[in-house]
């Protein structure tokens, strides 16, 4: 098995690659506008038929533009500005760090993208470094290219006939680092991504936070072809995704072998076309499930030799039937019904018989049905046919996306050679020898960085590593700098024990709320013990700091108030004739149960002792 990586990482520049917007600015207003993208048929080439279909039909693309986070450039209403010099510098530094050959001139290209994620219909991208290397576990891994490119707009929603994107992310500078295909195990792949990711993060040249580093993984098994898996955001997914892909692709090879056994070849597909089967269902509208599914049209496709293979599954969620359903979803269908599952739908034997007759089904054949729009159904089933033909060979070169649980789902056919042409709005940029010499950085060792962080902040190495790996490094440094009386151990515990696990469960952390929490502590308004409790409470109940403090009735006790309580409790104990030897323990226990979290235990201890001493003196 071979695994290749394309790592995309956002550069921490203050501006976008081709304009002077700062995506972190506060927006005071937003506007929406509508566009359409067009590509002439000859240029569509290998763009997937579903996208081509949508474009031909006139898919409306709605863009949401914030006044401070995007401008006329992102709206494709103004030519790009000169490329961000800082980003060029970072690209050169990383190319140097990864021992690449740095080009002498940067030629920005336009890579055609028609899903609407770029207002222009293309992504601007340029090669900075070629043929680099990175040492991983003593081996040299070849870095094929290092590209400087712009990030795409973020998808907000997809609806009937439209897609909606937000322009904030569009144009953020990204580095794309592409490795050669590596002969490695899933475990090694994860370790490799972690290692390179850490090395990049340690340069301090990249943005931190969820979505700032994304990897596409190319997986191919022997005898198969390259499958590209997009959108792997977490390291934990990598290993699972690769393991899943290996099994899934092997399963497709098995299916291919079975089809061969059954004597199926491309010839069996020659005369196969989508067939309208509306009549079959129209005549049975009395059957409840027919009434539920059948609207205007029903179309079916004979699938020679595929009986039983749609549902064939060697690893959960890897069925061929699922891929076919995903293809149909691109055309707006809810899904498909295939012959292996048709019994689930209770259409009855008559329908099954009629379908089989109409399609000319024999022993090993299966079929696929879709309900809905005539034009779409035909196009969609033609695509299904093409997919089934490819099943004869095994895995298909396609683009898939990674799910949270580490499986992959069909996204689109893998584009062939990218449609690229020069970005004529941006003049060539020279990279002089002087720049190449000046913009140099060395690889920092992760172990050293952890050690340094741990000793600088007096926290243990395990915690230091976890924090350095997380998005909370900036938060940590921020607190250390601004609230000098917050113990680093408290801060580290808060991050490692509460914030990181919470975030790993997929939830969003409001940094400012926790900054405020520590500010309250720093001002002496809440105790050390209460910090952790309040944090937990905030996250569990989903409330802000103010509500948490109110609801938990946490307000720091003054020493005066504490003395009053201690006096009450001593009087109480004396009245109960508590033995003098047990007096301290009893009073301390009773006081603590009332004041825990409101004042530090150390102070309670001192005050109780003091009060008892005074009592003895008296």
């Amino acid at each position, binding site marked *: 098995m071979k695994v290749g990586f394309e790592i995309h990482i956002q550069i921490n520049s203050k501006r976008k690659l081709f304009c002077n917007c700062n995506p972190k600015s506060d927006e005071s207003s937003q506007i929406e*506008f*509508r*566009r*359409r*993208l*067009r*590509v*002439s*048929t*000859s*240029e569509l080439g290998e763009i997937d038929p579903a996208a081509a279909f949508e474009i*031909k039909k*006139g898919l409306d693309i709605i863009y949401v533009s914030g006044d401070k986070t995007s401008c*006329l450039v992102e*709206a*494709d*209403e*103004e*030519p790009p500005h000169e490329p961000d010099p800082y980003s060029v510098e970072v690209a050169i530094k990383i190319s140097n760090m990864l021992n690449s*050959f740095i*080009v*002498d*001139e*940067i*030629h920005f*290209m*336009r*890579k*055609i993208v*028609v899903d609407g994620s770029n*207002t*222009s*219909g*293309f992504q601007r*991208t*340029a*090669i900075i470094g*070629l*043929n680099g290397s990175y040492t991983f576990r003593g081996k040299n891994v070849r870095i094929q*290219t290092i*590209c400087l490119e712009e990030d795409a707009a973020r998808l907000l929603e997809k609806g009937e006939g439209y897609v909606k994107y937000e322009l904030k992310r569009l144009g953020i500078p990204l580095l794309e680092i592409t490795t050669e295909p590596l002969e490695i195990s899933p475990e090694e792949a994860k370790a490799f991504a972690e290692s390179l990711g850490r090395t990049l993060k340690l340069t301090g040249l990249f943005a931190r936070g969820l979505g700032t580093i994304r990897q596409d993984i190319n997986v191919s098994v022997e005898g198969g072809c390259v499958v590209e898996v997009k959108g792997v955001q977490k390291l934990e997914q990598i290993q699972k995704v690769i393991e899943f892909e290996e099994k899934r692709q092997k399963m497709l090879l098995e299916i291919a072998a079975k089809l061969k056994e059954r004597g199926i070849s491309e010839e069996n597909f020659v005369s196969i076309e989508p067939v309208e089967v509306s009549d079959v269902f129209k005549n049975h509208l009395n059957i409840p499930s027919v009434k539920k599914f059948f609207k205007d049209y029903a179309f079916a496709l004979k699938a020679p030799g595929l009986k039983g293979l749609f549902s064939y599954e060697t690893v959960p969620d890897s069925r061929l039937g699922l891929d076919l359903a995903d293809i149909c979803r691109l055309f707006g269908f809810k899904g498909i019904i295939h012959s292996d599952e048709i019994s689930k739908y209770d259409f009855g034997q008559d329908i099954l018989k009629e379908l089989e007759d109409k399609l000319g089904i024999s022993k090993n054949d299966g079929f696929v049905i879709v309900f809905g729009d005539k034009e779409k159904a035909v196009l969609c089933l033609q695509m299904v046919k093409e997919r089934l033909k490819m099943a004869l060979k095994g895995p298909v070169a396609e683009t898939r996306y990674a799910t949270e649980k580490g499986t992959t789902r069909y996204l689109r056919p893998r584009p062939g*050679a*990218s*449609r*690229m*042409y*020069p970005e*004529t709005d941006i*003049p*060539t940029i*020279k990279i002089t020898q002087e720049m190449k010499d000046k913009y140099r950085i060395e690889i920092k060792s992760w172990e050293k960085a952890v050690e340094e962080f741990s000793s600088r902040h007096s926290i243990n190495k395990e915690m230091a590593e976890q924090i350095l790996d997380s998005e909370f490094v900036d938060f940590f440094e921020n607190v250390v700098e601004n609230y000098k009386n917050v113990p680093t151990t408290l801060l580290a515990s808060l991050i490692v024990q509460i914030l990181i696990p919470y975030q790993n469960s997929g939830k969003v952390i409001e940094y400012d709320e926790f900054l405020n929490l520590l500010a309250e502590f720093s001002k002496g308004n809440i105790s050390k013990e209460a910090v952790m409790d309040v944090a937990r409470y905030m996250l569990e109940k989903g409330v802000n700091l103010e509500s948490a403090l109110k609801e938990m009735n946490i307000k720091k006790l003054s020493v005066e108030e504490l003395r009053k309580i201690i006096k009450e409790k001593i009087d109480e104990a004396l009245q109960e004739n508590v033995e003098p030897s047990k007096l301290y323990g009893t009073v301390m226990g009773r006081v603590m149960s009332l004041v825990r979290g409101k004042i530090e235990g150390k102070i309670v201890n001192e005050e109780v002792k003091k009060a008892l001493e005074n009592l003895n003196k008296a």
Partner: protein
Amino acid sequence: MEKLQEFSRIKFRINDVVYEGIVMPRTLYEDEDHFTIKLNNGYNIGVEKGKIEILEVEPPKVSSEQPYEKSFESTGPKILILGTGGTISSKVDYRTGAVKPAFTASQIVDMVPELKNLASISVKTIMNELSENMQPLNWTLMAREVYNAFKEGYEGIVIAHGTDTMHYSASALSFAIENPAGPVVFVGSQRSSDRPSSDAATNLLGAVIFAAKSNSPGVYVAMHASINDDLIAIHKGVKVRKNHTSRRDAFKSINAKPFAYVDVKKLEIKFSEKKTEAKGPMNLYEKFSERAALLKFYPGISDKLLSSFFNKEFFDAVIVEGTGLGHVSRKAFPYIKDYIEKGGFVGMTSQCIWGSVRLTVYETGRDLLSMGVVSLEDMLSEVALVKSMWAIGNGLDLKAIMPKNLRGEINERREVL
């Protein structure tokens, strides 16, 4: 270093790695010391000639240029699309990345498939000029082509044009063709047609729909009404101006509503003004003279400039873009007075762009009037310039014709918009 023929396919080595690619042409602004190479992955890179070792060279294949087609078989009104150059009529060659003029009927229909059932379209490329290079001679050529096409029986003409001076050309044709037999619609694009987001296709669609279906003879400009890809505004050729350097809705009707809008989704026209009709036989007055000038007045304007503009030896007419209601500093008075006395024509427009000149409000205006300066009302300065070039070219009396509304260039009333 050896010189490699452009578009040669080469195998070369950088350090220890062998790559393949195509040698790309260098632009005028790029030096000779580097190669631009298109790698197999589609990317171009620039490398110093000395840094690569060329292993193999395969000379370029001769590309077979397809001849331009004359027409596209379809039913509907006979529409002629004239190509004159500019971003709207060029195309990228994906193999080489070069931008080439490409303007065939099938390419246009391929780009705008909606056109297929709308009109019977013919395409003719009559020149290939960026609009900043357009000269009065180009206007004459365009006017002649349009006139002849109507005579040949075309029902509407669409002229694909660069945007920078499109409003000058639209103005020129408005004057050159009296009573055109049908609509003449100028169309351009602000985003080049080689990008999927180009406004070229929708603008062209709007222009063809209007040319084919509006039954409104006249000269117009069809461009985006807003930054949305839904409505194309149809502006009158003598009331329109490019008002933004880059936005797709750069063209705006000044002192008027757009004449109509075309909804390119529903393929419908919505008129905001009464449809026009031909008032007489079509006539062609195709000449333009360069003996007219446009002077923008500004504080500190030099005597040298004034004396070279208001010079009867050079110019028969000077259109002044005055300040506000139509004023210039008294410093300019002697020059203007002298020029008019020698038989020169001075027409006043306003650099405010919106609104009308009114020379009776302030003393300066009255002084100018008494010298013989002619108020051109709400005529746009660019239109006034073109009109005077046309009037001189065709031997018309400037004093009589300039303040007269011939093609809708002067509005008698300005609506509250």
